[in-house]
């Protein structure tokens, strides 16, 4: 089964990969290790999980305005997500995605935190603001 969602382009580019989904906001500065691409925030539901090469789905960013530097560093070190999907993008994530050239879409016509599950195969077309989801159980 293929689900297609439409939303807003924030940063263009096309990427696909396995989804990692969290309902909790994400702080890249202090919350993600840029060398390893792993979430390190204590008590975060993704603590210890890798986001490298994944389609990273989360509600929005939080924390320091220095967060964009971390996203940028991950892009340089090839530990960044392949693309990001937010419920509502805010400047920290958006500026980081712009600096690291990572496709980012938000404001989808369905809540991505419910429509997408960790393990689904997702294709993000940042230029058109379109997200295609192939549910995991369909294999």
């Amino acid at each position, binding site marked *: 089964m293929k689900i297609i969602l439409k939303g807003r382009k*924030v*940063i263009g580019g096309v990427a696909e990969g396995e989804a990692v989904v969290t309902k909790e906001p994400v702080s890249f500065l202090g919350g993600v290790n840029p060398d390893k691409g792993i979430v390190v925030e204590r008590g975060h539901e993704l603590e210890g999980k890798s986001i490298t090469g994944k389609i990273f789905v989360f509600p929005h960013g939080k924390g320091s305005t220095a967060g*964009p*530097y971390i996203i*940028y560093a991950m892009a*340089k070190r090839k530990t960044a997500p392949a693309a990001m999907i937010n419920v509502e993008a805010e400047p920290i994530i*958006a500026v980081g995605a712009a*600096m690291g050239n990572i496709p980012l879409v938000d404001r989808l016509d369905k809540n991505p935190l419910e429509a997408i599950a960790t393990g689904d195969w997702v294709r993000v077309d940042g230029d058109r603001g379109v997200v295609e989801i192939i549910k995991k159980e369909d294999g």
Partner: protein
Amino acid sequence: MNLTDREKRMLDGAFGTGPQSAMRLLATLGEIYGAERMIPVSSCHVGGRSYLISGEENIEWMTDLLNGGARFQVFTSTNPCSADSERWKEMGLPEELVVKQRRADEPYLKMGAVPLGSCLPYQLGNVPLPGTHFAWGGSAGATFVNSVLAARGNREGSPSVIAAAIAGVTPEYGLHLKENRYGKVLVDLSGLDHSSLCLSDYSAIGSYVGRTLLDKTPVVVGLPQTVSQDQIRFLISPMPTAGAISLCHIVGITPEAPTVEAALGGKKPADKISVGLREMQSSFEKLTTTRQEDVDLVCFGCPHCSIPQIRQIASLLEGRKVHANTRLWVATSGHLKVMAQLMGYVEIIEKAGGLVLTDLCVAPGAPFHLVPGVKTVAINSARGAYFIPGACNLDVIFGDTEDCIAAAITGRFRRSR
């Protein structure tokens, strides 16, 4: 968003990958905030150059921009950083930090930044013209320009300021638009005896206003006609840290606020608060994180010390000695230190055992935690006291200038009132 032909060509890479990255970042911000167009900026001031804040990632990004052909197109000055590069040894800092900071500064200088190294750029030649737009990092400076100098800008993180300096434009949103600049809450200071207040008191008041109003623009009444630039600076500089305020109307001083009605845009205030002694005093308590009296380091300079402040510190220290277990740092700009030297203040302060330091940030980018033996810092501003515990993981005491000087001399902090 409507982009001009020049902006579109920059976005398409016609001017190189550096300007292209800058324009992509600005266009992204513009989309998120719903800006309709870009507007030219007349002045930029970059924060975030401190190696302790932005580290290797910023060096990589700035180097990529530089190699991609980016240069600053508008007057761009720099905020202070983590060390005085001449006096790191006396400060007790590792040389490694200074070496890394020099490397971090290289791309800024190559792109054409003027190394003021201060958060008082408006005292040092970076003065946005009235009616123009600016892009400044360092929220104390941005708030001062919005509130006093009649130019318009938002409080920004450093990547978007660097992008604006390269592209020469910024998206028109937030405080660039007149309709977002009107005051919302009336703040009455007329109940205070202003002749008895010191600089630190104004910063305590500003901190109370920030944490009470959060992001609502204040309209301040009740300041005396004799109010000084330093007093205004101390009043408004904690507002962006205690709250998210980047514009404070001071009726009779802010160019957009000749009257209360003009400041409010003809509307009724959403709320009205009065600040008295109790509210003011609450900031000193709230921002002090320890009950210990021992103080390892006393510092002045968040924001950077002006000449009148350096004069006061010198007069309080004249003929006295800083305690053997306590350090005293006075942070200012290179320009103002030269003036203070000519006026004899630097000699008085350093003879007493203090250091007058330049290019050093004593709050968000401060290196206190790298100085051996420093566990508790005393500072005379609410803005500094807000940053130090989080940035350096140390205890902080927020006291007035006289009590801080007494602490430097005795090694122990005691509130005199």
